[in-house]
């Protein structure tokens, strides 16, 4: 029998872990916290009266080592963490470093039961109580937890205090009122008659008892300081916010679940400007009209108020067609119809404005709740997308910043700017930034003025690798003592101080000269930052008001080519306290912070540099070195442009070889003249450091467009109404179209001869047939006897691995078919030319089945980055009603002008070009010229230059789980502790992230 059991255990152990074979048993770690959701924090101490143990969070602090759970000689930070699986709230004593067991008489950890689907939790500012909303569709409500219940002395060792649903005060929300979020707002309306000196109830006629509730259920200690606390609760399905008095709820009879006393209801609306015919489009262009301004200082130019993103809608310019303004119309042909409001998340500013995200209507509601009893709906923010103006943009997580300076790094700037960050749910959780300062006139997302120099990121979004689950702002300081010994805060750095610098307090924060020691640098956070919790388990840091911003720049150059704003035209200034970085745009407002110095000379400092000069490989992948004596007759060369027009101190940064920033040392090598240059090289465009990433660049002659690097499947169809074979052979031959419905030729950058000609290039792209012929024994051949045979086809077209290719005389021959014109769904091909007119074998006869093909550049070099890929600005003609069949055109959007991935060769007899001059290949990252020999042999196809770009801008995105998966659910800053609290839904329970060390310092589960 034992054998039977053992055998079955082995069998079923495999079987039951999952209903399938070959499955491994899941190893499940037992943790006390399960699917944590959101957290609220309280600071408790017991040397106060036990009934009033709370105090402001600032009164707590982090401790070097955990303190005993019963040792309240110092105040304890208590976290209340919602447990979404169990419908409970876990009590975590952060100071003791332990999860509290609410009922030690029952095995395992027991928490406070609050009902299914806890959706939000808040604590009063004085830590007297916390409130949990539950979104159980059958029983939506709010539960109150008195902080006196959380003290260890009150733990339910005695049966009477065992926490159950009936021991908590609660109220029921109205039908359909499953709450999504809530905040506490202090009603500061004075009242001489009410407890605490502030109005107790919104309505003068409301039956409010001024009798003090039991001390354990009273907020009267807090009211004089923070006003009468009101819960503002978002009820999505009802499209409204409701206001509930916190004291009223806390003092309710435990165990009852009567309807909440709703003191005020705020009905939200989709208040977008009117749409439809005749109405202005609701897009970024409209926002420009509402209030255009631009950032004045590059160091503060991360996102700008209403900066122009694109050209006017659809207006042709310089022969092209702009990418904007035409999107798929809805069925009624108008813009988006209004949607029912559906509030999701709340963010309360300290000026009394409440920002409400909406996951149905394309608005962010703004409500003035300074007087929560008479809340006023203000004009909403308008979340739109510049890239997809037709899309209904709905929002998720939202946060509002404290007031920050108008210009980062400027000591004279006022602290008068405030921003809202909101997550665009359906754009992979990207973040929109709204200026909600009192002087702001725009309601649409801010956009970057530097789009042209970094066209890879959306112009009006912060796009990260993963969706943003939640976000918050935090101000982190490292106060130092002034000459008087007093700690000073908000000391603004200055890279070019008037002497004597030692008297400047900011001097103490200067960057370290070795870029290793302490001081202003990427990992030193001084100022206000946004922290984004990503769904991939990372936290990204965004610069909002970095006190050290002025330090982070080049040391001796003001060059615009480094993204700087020259202080003195024509001269270069010195910045003795600068961080010696390669750009003035390393720290930019609303941009993800750099994780490393953007500087040369070390692997830890990541300014762009050529790891070695580009190497030329012939089509056989054999390295071919340049012989300077041949005069450019034989081999092509890739050389940077002449840098005479680049400031002398900037040259070493623009053309850095192997990490050197001393141009004089390599100048003799980095010659722009093909008859003199000793080695290949390129110049970097450093105007936007975020365009750079460490990667391998390949510049391939007649290279495959990356979309078709592995080939694709399509079919040839005669353009005329005749059979495929007759297409080429009858008296009135036509041409083929290549159809591939999944190719999206324009989006993939295909160009026909028409676009090539517009750019002065000799040939359109080439379709190369990769297919083999049907098998020799395929019955097909018998059906075309007399027209073609396999052997004849082999002669005409060659085998797939040994193709016959087009030549200069007949580019559309062999397996090559020149693209005459490209469309989104097909390519119109030039009629096929045959090298042997005596034995014309129709393409369709030799390739009767859908062909496998690739698309190559015709007589051009394809520039591809291993990370950033192939850049182009081809798009389906937006003036065509059906984009799926529209012709491919070049965008005239100036912001896309540097999205280039095609380089035309230049004859070595032509003049040398200067940096930025027309004729130089320019992308957002590189500038160079390919100098071709007198004639490239057709067999040069696939010969290439290749080099590694070292360095690159690295985004500060820190993994929360080094050994386990983490799914952060929310993030908030905990003052006092100076930590970011991040509940994890997988296994880490509650993570505490230290913005000083930029690491997780505690995981409580």
């Amino acid at each position: 029998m034992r054998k039977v059991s053992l055998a079955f255990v082995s069998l079923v152990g495999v079987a039951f872990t999952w209903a399938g074979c070959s499955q491994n048993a899941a190893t499940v770690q037992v943790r006390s916290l399960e699917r944590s959701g959101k957290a609220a924090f309280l600071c408790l101490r017991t040397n106060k009266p036990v009934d009033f143990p709370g105090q402001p969070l600032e009164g707590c602090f982090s401790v070097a080592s955990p303190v005993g759970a019963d040792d309240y000689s110092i105040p304890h930070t208590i976290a209340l963490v919602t447990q979404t699986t169990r419908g409970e709230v876990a009590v975590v004593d952060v100071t003791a470093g332990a999860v509290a067991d609410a009922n030690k008489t029952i095995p395992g950890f027991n928490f406070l039961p609050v009902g299914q689907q806890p959706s939000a939790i808040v604590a009063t500012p004085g830590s007297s109580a916390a409130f949990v909303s539950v979104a159980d569709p059958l029983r939506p409500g709010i539960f109150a937890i008195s902080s006196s219940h959380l003290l260890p002395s009150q733990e339910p060792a005695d049966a009477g205090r065992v926490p159950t649903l009936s021991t908590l005060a609660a109220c029921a929300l109205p039908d359909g009122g499953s709450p999504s979020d809530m905040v506490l707002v202090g009603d500061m309306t004075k009242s001489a008659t009410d407890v605490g000196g502030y109005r107790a109830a919104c309505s003068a006629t409301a039956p409010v008892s001024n009798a003090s509730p039991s001390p354990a259920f009273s907020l009267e200690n807090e009211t004089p300081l923070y006003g009468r606390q009101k819960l503002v609760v978002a009820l999505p399905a009802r499209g409204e916010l409701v206001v509930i008095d916190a004291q009223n709820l806390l003092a309710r009879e435990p165990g009852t679940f009567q309807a909440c006393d709703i003191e005020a209801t705020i009905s939200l609306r989709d208040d977008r400007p009117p749409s439809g015919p005749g109405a202005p489009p609701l897009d970024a262009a409209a926002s420009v009209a509402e209030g255009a301004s631009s950032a004045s200082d590059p160091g503060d130019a991360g996102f700008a108020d209403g900066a122009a993103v694109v050209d006017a809608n659809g207006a042709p310019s310089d022969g092209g067609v702009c990418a904007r303004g035409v999107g798929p119309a809805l069925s009624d042909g108008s813009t988006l119809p209004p949607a029912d409001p559906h509030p999701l998340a709340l963010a309360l500013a300290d000026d009394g404005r409440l920002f409400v995200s909406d996951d149905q209507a394309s608005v962010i509601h703004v409500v003035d709740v300074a007087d929560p009893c008479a809340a006023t709906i203000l004009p909403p923010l308008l979340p739109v997308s510049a890239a997809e103006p037709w899309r209904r943009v709905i929002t998720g997580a939202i946060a509002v910043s404290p007031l920050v300076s108008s210009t980062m790094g400027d000591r004279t700037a006022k602290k008068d700017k405030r921003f809202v960050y909101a997550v665009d749910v359906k754009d992979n959780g990207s973040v929109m930034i709204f200026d909600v300062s009192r002087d702001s006139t725009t309601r649409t997302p801010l956009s970057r003025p530097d789009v042209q120099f970094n066209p890879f990121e959306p112009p009006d979004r912060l796009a990260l690798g993963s969706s943003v689950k939640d976000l918050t702002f935090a101000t982190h300081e490292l106060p130092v003592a002034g000459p008087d010994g007093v700690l000073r805060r908000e000391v603004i750095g200055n890279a070019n101080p008037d002497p004597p610098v030692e008297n400047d307090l900011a001097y103490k924060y200067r960057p370290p000269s070795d870029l290793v020691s302490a001081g202003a640098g990427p990992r030193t956070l001084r100022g206000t930052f946004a922290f984004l919790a990503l769904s991939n388990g990372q936290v990204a840091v965004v610069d909002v008001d970095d006190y050290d911003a002025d330090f982070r720049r080049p040391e001796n150059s003001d060059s615009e080519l480094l993204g700087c704003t020259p202080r003195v035209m024509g001269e270069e200034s010195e910045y003795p306290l600068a961080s010696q970085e390669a750009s003035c745009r390393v720290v930019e407002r609303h941009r993800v912070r750099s994780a490393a110095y953007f500087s040369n000379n070390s692997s830890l400092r990541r300014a762009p540099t050529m790891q070695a000069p580009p190497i030329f490989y012939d089509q056989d992948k054999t390295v071919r070195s340049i012989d300077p004596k041949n005069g450019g007759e034989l081999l092509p060369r890739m050389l940077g442009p002449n840098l005479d027009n680049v400031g002398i101190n900037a040259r070493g940064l623009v053309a850095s070889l192997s990490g050197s920033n001393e141009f004089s040392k390599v100048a003799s090598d980095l010659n722009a003249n093909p008859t003199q240059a000793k080695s290949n090289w390129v110049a970097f465009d450093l105007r936007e450091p975020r365009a750079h990433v460490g990667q391998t660049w390949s510049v391939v002659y007649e290279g495959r467009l990356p979309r078709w690097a592995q080939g694709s499947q399509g079919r040839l169809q005669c353009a005329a109404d005749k059979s495929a074979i007759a297409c080429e052979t009858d008296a009135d031959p036509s041409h083929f179209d290549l159809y591939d419905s999944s190719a999206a030729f324009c989006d993939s950058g295909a160009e026909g001869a028409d676009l090539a000609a517009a750019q002065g290039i000799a040939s359109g792209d080439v379709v190369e047939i990769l297919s083999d012929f049907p098998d020799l024994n395929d019955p097909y051949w018998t059906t075309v006897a007399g027209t073609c045979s396999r052997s004849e086809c082999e002669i005409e077209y060659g085998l797939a691995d040994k193709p016959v290719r087009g030549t200069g005389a007949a580019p559309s021959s062999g397996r090559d078919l020149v693209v005459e014109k490209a469309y989104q769904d097909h390519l119109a091909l030039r009629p096929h030319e045959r090298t042997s007119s005596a034995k014309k074998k129709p393409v369709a006869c030799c390739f009767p089945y859908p062909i496998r093909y690739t698309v190559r550049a015709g007589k051009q070099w394809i520039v591809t980055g291993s990370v950033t890929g192939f850049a182009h600005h081809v798009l389906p003609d937006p003036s065509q009603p059906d984009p799926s069949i529209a012709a491919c055109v070049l965008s005239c959007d100036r912001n896309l002008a540097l999205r280039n991935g095609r380089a035309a060769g230049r004859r070595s007899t032509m003049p040398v070009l200067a940096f930025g001059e027309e004729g130089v290949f320019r992308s957002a990252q590189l500038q160079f010229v390919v100098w071709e020999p007198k004639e490239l042999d057709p067999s040069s196809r696939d010969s290439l230059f290749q080099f590694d770009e070292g360095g690159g801008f690295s985004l500060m995105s820190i993994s929360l789980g080094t050994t386990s998966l983490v799914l952060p659910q929310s993030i908030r800053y905990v003052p006092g502790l100076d930590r970011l609290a991040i509940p994890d839904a997988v296994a880490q329970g509650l993570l505490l992230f230290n913005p000083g060390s930029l690491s997780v310092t505690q995981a409580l589960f």
Partner: protein
Amino acid sequence: MGRLTRRTVIAALAIATGCYSTGEGPDPVPHAIYFPVGLAVSPGGGALYVANSDFDLQFNSGTVEAYDLARLRKILEPLWSTGDATVRACAAAGLGVNATPVLQPGVCGPLDLRSPPDAASNPEPIVKASARIGAFATDLLYVCHPSEDPTRRGSCSQSGTADPRGSRLFVPVRGDASLTFFEVDDDRPVTPPEPGVVRPSGAQTFRLDCGQAANNGRCADGHRAGVDAHDNTRGLTLPAEPFAIAVSERTDSILVTHQGSGSVSLFTGLGGASVLDAKPALQYVLGGLPGFTTGVAPLPIPGSVARLGLAATNYQPGFVITYRGIPGIPQVEILRVFDDSFAAPSRPFLSRAAAFPLQSTPSGTDSRGIAIDSQPRAACEADCEGRSDENTCVAACSQVALPAYIANRSPASLLVGEVRSPDPNGASDDITIYETVPLAQGPSRVVVGNIRDRRGVARKRVFVLAFDARIIFVYDPVEHRVDGQIRTGRGPYSLVMDPIEPIAYVGHFTDSYIGLVDLDESHGDTFESLVATIGVPNPPQESK
């Protein structure tokens, strides 16, 4: 070593080495649920089909059975229609009290299929038909003939009418590496009545035909596709470990994933016809994929394409597949079916069209079920009907994003995203995953269905089965949150919605029974809970 032990070891080895049945053992017990892996309901609600996998090889085959669902529904009505969660309701249904509510949730004891409570008044068996299949079935798919009108979406539309040719059930079977199929009834209503039809379509006769009548109760070779290499021009047989299955919107192709290899198999109908018209042929096996293939779902065909025709628009139907054990960046992938109709002979094939990274999760290396909800686009297209600009309107509907859901195991989560189709006539769908909803251990399958709210209105929900945690998570796509958790018995594996009432059926793999879930929100005590147990739970033998 005793006989039972030997068989067990053989079974264990079989599982470890490729899951092939030895063919030994007794015949399966009739009218019994045994390690159910697939449930399906006829669109008229008359029949419930169950695929039993014989997972521990106790018997010489698995089975597929057809149950009289209308009768089950009627017997259990006191449990699902009243919201009464007391023993009073059990008595009303003729059931006892549940003695093991921890293992099998619910107040009432099980409904014994061999001895139902109404046996006295109705001696007919509840299990109306049965056939034996290979061991280790993995899924069950009911497919109706699509409408002759290509603009009508879905093969089993509730608003459609019964097709006199009936429908088919498809079952991927690992034991004999086949796609086994059954002829079954299409019991949707007939409107208008069809004169001259011998068997009035719409009737439910519990037909379950895989040629077993002439084959000793086992499905005949004529109903097992992918077994004979001579059935196709490529000499293919179905690779090992077929797993999930999906059919294209026009029912002209079926994809089967293989959880033990990086491959996907393509079955098509004869000459491009429906897979319901003749024995489907295994046409192509796409190998070399980056991970073990798990989930599969068809991509809806854009309305414009449906109107113009696939050939005229050069459109290739697509499927989305998910992966397990994929190295590097986790992803889902779109495969497209090329009918190869220009070739002679045409040999349909699959092509990898595009891959989409699962960026919104720390790890997507173990994805399972996937569901794409085509209803929003269908509703948009329906609104266009009769308009003067109908074609333009329908073309615009392609811009309506389709919700997509993926069950992800590591971490346990539901990935939520969208399928977008930027080109109304193009096969260029994009998949964006933008949300990760945390779940408990073992998510495996995703089902899009409905609950009935307190006003009696159907509300869409996404049900995710977490096998290990014994929970079905209920995700509200409007509120963007999990709004319910259905506590199940051990090993919830399959879920099917009742087409008539707000109830659902959960196949419990571990204890071999079917649970009935109340999905009527007006039932405060029983909403989103198991209220009935169909079949006597049968714990795995080692735990007896």
